[in-house]
């Protein structure tokens, strides 16, 4: 495997739980990065804090494992100081949408040239399963023991509304599609945001009737609705089920961006 060489082999196996989908997302991201022909010396991976944010620690290039929620602030700094660098950010739903929410919308607004891969397990995995801003209604977490009563954020709509140039959503089941989406994200100048819904058997699955890892992956697969199909359903005034989520390329445009390679 050619993207093999991007891993820090001495750090593997990683600490993720058995069946955690974060490793799958690292594979797909690195497979896309490997196709870009980038030099390792010119590539930086940045993250905040969380299980998802441990990803750069397993990658051979220089990286910044920063403070909780601040991955995008640090990544912005890297881009401003070194516009020629390729910046890829790994983050989680808690890291990016809760404590890092403001950094997120402003990085989208500024349309800074970087690619952000958000591993959305819909929970705070690392700290034992507290609810996050993307925990779906009715789901159990340690802070929503009777089922989450709040409506969740749609991270992709947020990124689109705030100004990101490229926005896509896939799941840890759609490995080939995800690899392609990350590649388009890396190629697109400006802010590229790829949300990946992912299974977290330990903190989310265990509490939410996904006893087996595959049960959750099957759920992600069967509840994803291709954007083209969703659009057709809307055109025909059909009802789009509430528990389905849209996957595919959601936004691609060419707003003025900053930090684009000279």
């Amino acid at each position: 495997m050619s993207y093999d060489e991007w891993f820090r082999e001495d750090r593997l196996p990683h600490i993720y739980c058995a069946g955690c989908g974060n490793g799958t997302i690292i594979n797909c991201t690195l497979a896309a990065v490997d196709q870009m022909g980038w030099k390792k010396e010119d590539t930086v991976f940045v993250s905040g804090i969380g299980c998802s944010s441990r990803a750069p620690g397993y990658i051979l290039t220089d990286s910044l494992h920063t403070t909780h929620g601040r991955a995008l602030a640090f990544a912005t700094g890297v881009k401003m100081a070194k516009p020629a660098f390729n910046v890829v950010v790994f983050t989680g739903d808690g890291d990016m949408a809760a404590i890092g929410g403001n950094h997120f919308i402003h990085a989208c607004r500024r349309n800074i040239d970087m690619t952000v891969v958000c591993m959305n397990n819909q929970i705070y995995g690392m700290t034992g399963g507290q609810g996050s801003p993307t925990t779906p209604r009715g789901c159990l977490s340690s802070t929503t023991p009777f089922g989450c009563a709040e409506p969740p954020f749609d991270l992709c709509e947020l990124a689109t509304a705030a100004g990101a140039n490229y926005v896509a959503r896939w799941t840890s089941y759609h490995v080939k599609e995800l690899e392609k989406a990350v590649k388009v994200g890396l190629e697109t100048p400006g802010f590229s945001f790829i949300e990946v819904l992912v299974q977290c058997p330990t903190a989310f699955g265990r509490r939410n009737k996904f006893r087996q890892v595959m049960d959750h992956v099957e759920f992600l697969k069967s509840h994803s609705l291709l954007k083209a199909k969703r659009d057709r359903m809307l055109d025909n005034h059909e009802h789009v089920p509430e528990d389905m989520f849209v996957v595919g390329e959601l936004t691609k445009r060419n707003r003025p961006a900053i930090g684009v390679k000279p």
Partner: protein
Amino acid sequence: MKLSIDENRCKGCNLCTKVCPYKIFREGKKLNRKGVAIPELDRPERCTNCRLRNLYGRQLCGVCQLTCPDQAIHWVEEEPYEPHKVAIEY
């Protein structure tokens, strides 16, 4: 080319048993020294990448490898004249 699972990395999540179109990975039964049941390979020579990689000169399929969260699935070159089980498929 032949498939190999790295016993040091595999955590026995069995995701690979669900994604291969040929169902080459089967749930393992015996625990290894780390207490993990490594999946068994069912006639792995059927794998697209095993058969055609060297002919096409590029990675084919590879869904199991991308899916494996623990980077445990790889392909290795075969030794010359490695004995094969002869499988006849009708």
